[in-house]
């Protein structure tokens, strides 16, 4: 990813598609939007994680197939999009979000080779994720 501009702190920087069928969805998004895919499985312990992009641009997000391995025990979520906001310090920000009335759905957790992420439900009830990228962002 060298040579590409990193997303700014506080901005939307990653859009993740939790898919019910990675095989069908990869060809679907390629057909409709012209996306190509890179291998992001270093972040998921070898589970397929398709980073999608246009041309040779910076990846706009990733796509994975919903499974107990990636989503944890319990009821699996329905297929959905999840937007990530890039932040400098996911730990303090998640704490502040809680103080401001959010529900912490997933406390900060390390994602190998990527950074640290958390997921909250905002006071309006919508899910959103925060991530601090390894290397500190900018």
């Amino acid at each position, binding site marked *: 990813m060298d040579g590409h501009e990193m997303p700014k702190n506080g901005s939307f920087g990653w859009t993740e598609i939790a898919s019910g069928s990675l095989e069908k969805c990869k060809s679907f998004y390629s057909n409709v939007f012209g996306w190509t895919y890179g291998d992001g499985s270093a972040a998921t312990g070898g589970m397929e994680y398709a980073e999608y992009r246009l041309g040779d641009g910076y990846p706009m997000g990733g796509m994975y197939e919903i499974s107990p391995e990636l989503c944890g025990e319990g009821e699996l979520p329905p297929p959905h999009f999840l937007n990530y906001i890039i932040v400098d310090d996911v730990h303090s920000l998640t704490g*502040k979000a809680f103080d401001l009335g959010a529900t912490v759905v997933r406390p900060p957790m390390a994602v190998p080779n990527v950074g640290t992420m958390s997921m909250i439900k905002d006071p309006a009830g919508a899910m959103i994720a925060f991530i601090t990228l390894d290397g500190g962002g900018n």
Partner: protein
Amino acid sequence: MAEFTPPPHGTVCWRELTAQRVDAAKSFYAELLGWSLEQSKMTTMPYTEIHIDGQAVGGMMKIDEQWGEGWENIPAHWMTYIAVDNCDEAVSKIKDSGGNVCVPPFDAPGVGRMAVAGDPSGATFSVIQFAAPTV
């Protein structure tokens, strides 16, 4: 006035919070992330734009009784928009490629033409063809 350049076809370009309790979300995100939130100048309907460093990157829209019966039960969510060159052609391609159309193409005056769709596994997103800027 925030700048906005219509992005290339296939770009994830806009995020929109759609919720009943938009006011709670506005103060939350402004306080948490320092977002600047302003009524859109592109439309006369109530629509809050999210501005980061002078760039319009998303919006917030209130779900209210105008959404029709059952509006209270629509889950609050962040909708993802993907830019397309032609909304109607994109919708045909979505259908041909195994997706489904939740809301057929409609015009949002001053903004563009958009539709809500689902991928073959049911994840929901929107497509938007931006109107040519009228300065």
